[in-house]
């Protein structure tokens, strides 16, 4: 689709404008969007805080409108077992209470993150070394265990015992990584 404005470059931005007669949508190229944006800036418009932003969650519409009524009948959603935060409360305060909240609300989070992070929902970037190592160790333990099962089924009990010892040694290392404190041989 070509840009509605210059009719030259391909449209890459949808530009929604709220007017007296409702909202209108225009498909613009980056250059025209930039210019249009420049001339339609209203400095009195403050950016939304996270709380304001998330509290529009159950309003049912993407646009910003009063949401008080719908909030009262809003369900609590899942409750975090570690810090007792409900999903509703999370939207209210705009903060997670603990790392476990991420597991508890996992199903709902892509939508939250998509809004906050320009459509992105998964992490790309740095991964802690310790996590990489844990991850690798876990995989290795699983691998050894399935080999051990195989050995048992084949009645190769000596092999199975050796594999069991190997798995136990790795599990010990995994536990050390988990503590991460002194005595860990992560380096």
């Amino acid at each position, binding site marked *: 689709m070509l840009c509605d404005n210059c009719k030259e470059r391909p449209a890459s931005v949808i530009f929604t404008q709220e007017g007296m007669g409702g909202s209108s949508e225009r498909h613009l190229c980056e250059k025209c969007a930039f210019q249009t944006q420049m001339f339609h800036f209203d400095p009195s418009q403050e950016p939304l805080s996270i709380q304001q932003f998330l509290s529009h969650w159950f309003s049912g519409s993407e646009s910003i409108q009063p949401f008080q009524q719908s909030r009262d009948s809003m369900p609590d959603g899942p409750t975090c077992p570690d810090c007792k935060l409900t999903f509703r409360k999370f939207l209210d305060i*705009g*903060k*997670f209470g*603990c790392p476990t909240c991420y597991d508890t609300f996992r199903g709902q989070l892509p939508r939250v993150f998509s809004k906050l*992070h320009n459509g992105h929902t998964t*992490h790309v970037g*740095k991964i802690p070394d310790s*996590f990489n190592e844990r991850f690798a160790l876990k995989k290795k333990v699983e691998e050894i265990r399935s080999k051990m099962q195989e050995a048992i089924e084949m009645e190769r009990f000596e092999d199975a015992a050796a594999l069991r010892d190997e798995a136990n040694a790795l599990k010990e290392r995994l536990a050390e990584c988990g503590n*991460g404190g002194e005595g860990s041989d992560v380096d």
Partner: protein
Amino acid sequence: MEVKAAMSINKFMKGAVTGWMTSHGEHSDIVMSTRIRLARNLRGFRFPIAFTADEAEKVDSQVSAALLTSGEKGYAYMKMAELPGLERQVLVEKHLVSPQLTDVKRHGAVILSEDETLSIMLNEEDHIRIQCIYPGFQLENAYEHADSVDNYLENKLPYAFDEDFGYLTSCPSNTGTGMRASVMMHLPALTITKQIERIIPAIARLGMIVRGSYGEGSEAPGNIYQVSNQTTLGKPEKEILADLKNVALRLIAHERRSREILLSKSRVALENKLFRSLGIISYARLLPSGEAARCLSDVRLGIDLGIIEDVDMSILNELMIFMQPGFLQQYAGADLTAEERDIFRADLFRERLRSEQQINENNKEN
């Protein structure tokens, strides 16, 4: 009441100037400082918003033990609840800790490197906030520094990290890289010509945010703006830094062009404005903070354009910090009312400019 300064301005400043307040680094005529902040949390503990005093204590002792035994010399550890109020305020005014950390009902602490380019806040909104501030435009250097501290810590302590969501943080707006990169920019020409009002929303479209130097929704005293990345999820650190760098470079180019246009189109009016401001900070006896910030910005622009000579460009960086209430009261060695602060601010500025003159005269004699 008459309050006399507790010490000479030179001695006071010597003890108070922090690495990032000097005017060094690339584009330091426009970019005042660069900051990288990484938010991290420990696995197995609730976030500060929900944790118990006992958990807070454990987080504090584990992180501080890891850092203080790192072999890195000159780390200073400070518990907020044990610091006098004025010292806490001064740390905030130097941007070394956030206002939120200094709430003594909470369990905040900070670890500072000797040159104060590195500050690690404990139990702020997240368990760990690694922050590096460098003078001028130094995104890569500041990131490398913060990253190396992060690497050290992650090998000592188990971080809360998730395969899908990355580094887990208390606020969903930090999830992912946990990184906020920002550059503090002095943009007087874009402000005078009102172009900044049109540039800010354009930058927002690029996933960046521009605001006054004192955080969200604040005006821009001294025409100083903070430009930072808005999103932390879905883009690797290097890309976020490259995007921010690009935006900042464009702003720098715009600002330079506007300065040239101002000079060529209205030189006399501009000179008049800038010299009047120099006059005010050189002679005023009462100097409210808004006026002080405006005049400092003018004087700094005058220095950058070669209109005002014999004043060092670090004057803006330093006095913007020292004119704040905490610093003024530390300088005075007493609690001050608002009016007394205005008097003291005027004294401080005059003295600072006088010490500038003395240095210049000495230089000429040599």
